[in-house]
């Protein structure tokens, strides 16, 4: 039962929690200028939902304390010559401090404060140009037309959900490793082998139930994605099912190798975490793009079935491509699956001989 429901439950929770929209970042302000211009600027900064003014203070010490205690994520210091510099077009006397322990939120604050500051300065510049009579179309002449394909609003959950599928479908691999290790631990492997089934049959017999358990999730998850999270499913479902079976075969073969080598269930699980779960999280391009990994880690990622499956799921869910484009990844997965099964069978024989 646990095997059946774990992938879907964890996927739902993860998508729900990880697909966040940063908003209401608490900031503090110090206004050394205290002019009409600076007050107008402060109004503009805090006009939206993105930044919340936590405190408007005159003491740097207070800011220091608030940052240390994590009460604010960023602070803006308006210099004493802020309005003077701005009106004389000498520049922007403004300092932004961010909490570097949370780069995500800090970067967000910098971007948003920066945009507001820029448009504020541009308005002043435009006023000056108007009075001086220079003909100028716009202060931001380049018309940047941005379009995001497959996920127009760049919502993280739209691509995280298909990406995380490769992680949660790896869970049955732990079960494969555990059941094989259990036979070693309870010394029942010998009894099994005394029966007239071959070793390959035994190994396949161990993974097929878990492939089926995984497939139930493969069917349920797209339905939830569509109905609950509004994630599109643009590809062909049958092709997706086929590709998922291939992935499960490759991924569960990894569990098989672990189960063959480890003599206790606890060791099997520990090793599964180390070689299946953690690399699956960090090295398959779901959170951190593969292109940005160092060379060696990129090579390793090729041997992780999750890397190929993450490309497949995003392709099928979002891009809407099918086997005609995805076949190289399918072949890679079949190759990995066969290689892993081969290694497991080989060492299985040796160990028992």
């Amino acid at each position, binding site marked *: 039962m646990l095997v059946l429901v774990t992938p879907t439950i964890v996927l739902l929770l993860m998508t729900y929690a990880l697909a966040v929209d940063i908003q209401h970042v608490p900031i503090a302000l110090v206004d050394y200028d205290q002019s009409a211009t600076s007050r107008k600027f402060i109004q503009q900064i805090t006009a939206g939902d993105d930044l919340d003014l936590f405190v408007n203070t005159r003491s740097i010490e207070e800011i220091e304390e608030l940052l240390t205690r994590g009460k604010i994520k960023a602070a803006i210091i308006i210099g004493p010559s802020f309005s003077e510099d701005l009106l004389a077009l000498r520049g922007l006397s403004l*300092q932004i401090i961010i909490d570097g322990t949370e*780069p995500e939120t800090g970067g967000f604050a910098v971007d948003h404060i920066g945009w507001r500051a820029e448009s504020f300065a541009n308005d002043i510049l435009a006023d000056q140009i108007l009075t001086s009579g220079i003909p100028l179309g716009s202060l931001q*002449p380049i018309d940047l037309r*941005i379009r995001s394909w497959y996920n127009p609003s760049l919502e993280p959950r739209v691509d995280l959900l298909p990406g995380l599928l490769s992680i949660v479908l790896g869970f049955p691999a732990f079960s494969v490793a555990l059941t094989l290790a259990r036979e070693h631990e309870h010394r029942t492997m010998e009894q099994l082998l005394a029966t007239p089934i071959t070793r390959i049959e035994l190994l396949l017999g161990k993974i097929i139930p878990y492939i089926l358990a995984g497939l139930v999730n493969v069917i349920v998850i797209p339905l939830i994605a569509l109905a609950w999270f509004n994630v599109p499913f643009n590809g062909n479902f049958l092709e997706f099912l086929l590709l998922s079976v291939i992935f499960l075969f490759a991924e569960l073969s990894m569990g098989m190798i672990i189960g063959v080598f480890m003599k206790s269930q606890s060791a099997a699980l*520990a090793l599964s975490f180390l070689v299946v779960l953690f690399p699956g999280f960090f090295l398959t391009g779901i959170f951190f793009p593969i292109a940005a990994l160092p060379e060696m880690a990129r090579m390793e990622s090729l041997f992780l079935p999750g890397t190929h499956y993450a490309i497949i799921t995003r392709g099928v869910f979002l891009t809407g491509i099918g086997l005609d484009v995805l076949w190289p990844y399918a072949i890679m997965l079949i190759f990995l699956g066969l290689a892993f099964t081969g290694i497991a069978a080989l060492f299985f024989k040796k160990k028992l001989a």
Partner: protein
Amino acid sequence: MIRRILALVKKEFLHLKGDWWLPAFMLFGGALELLAIGWATSRPITNLPMMIWDMDRTVASRNLVISLENTGVFTMTEPADSMAIIVDQMDRGKINAAVLIPHGFSQELESLGGEPVLQVILNGAESIPAREALRAVEGVVRSLDEKITIDHLGIDSEIFKGFDFSLRVWFNEALNDAFYTTPAELALMLEFTILLFAALTFSREKEFGTLEQLLVMPFSSLEIIIGKSIPVIMVGLIDFTLMLSLNSFAFHIPIRGSVLLLFTLAFMYILVELGKGMAISVFSKSQHQAFLLVFMVGMIDFLFTGYAAPVESMPKVIQYVSYLIPAHHWLNIMRGITLKGSTILDIMPSILYLLVLGGIIGFFSMRYIRKALD
């Protein structure tokens, strides 16, 4: 009593002797993994493949491409000469972004009141690199905008340096990504190690039917619990020490606060997780079930370490749940002490939450375990 407990501790270690894989993973697995993953992922996002379709082919358009390259975020692929190529490469997921520079771009750029257009296509199927690419492109375009405006206005660029603000990053001056990611990775590995080991304690005895033997021996249930806890605590502390040293020496993450305070609280945190693991252990009928539960609990806890998304930005419901997650408070404590040099007063709220949670978890798991043992 102490001698009886020591005998139990010895027995626990005897289990480990037969299978040297487990202690090896317990002690060094987490540290090695932290080293490998920290090394691979604690770096800025770079090398994103980008495709350019330059229909303008002028000095200005080439300069734009060079500026994009200079951001360090992109690796340029073979330039495109048709939309079909861009569509194909996007569909295959081979590129994260494409920039189209239309005919007459430089002409529009140079003429007063001209309207140069740039088209950017992002691959939304990978939203994290897409956002990064967008940020880089916008930065390049903004500085180009500013330059044009200044040129048009004839302002002396010596006097007007543009509307730039000065930025200071506290606690992490060089904006090193490792500062943020490795503490979360450390917490994840530490939690899994403790939970796994703690979950093993009773489920293994149950599965092998040796729990009854243990119960007929002259141990009180409290002695059994303590005897089973000591090895887990030892492993947890050793693991923590190893990983913390790695953080300092391999990733240069400072410990700006009190090391003693950090270890005291680490000890407390290990006790809380131990309580959770042991409760799972008595609750489960087999090791398999216990391990799957450990795994589910660990994955859920990982969401609240702030690794992939800041907890403050999560949906309100999830934020309330985060108060119930020991790992969430532990990360606040660890980030506070190591990166911010927080004193005990700065992180008092997190310590109190952890204490209360520890009390509740400890109380219930003790009661539950003793009931199961008696």
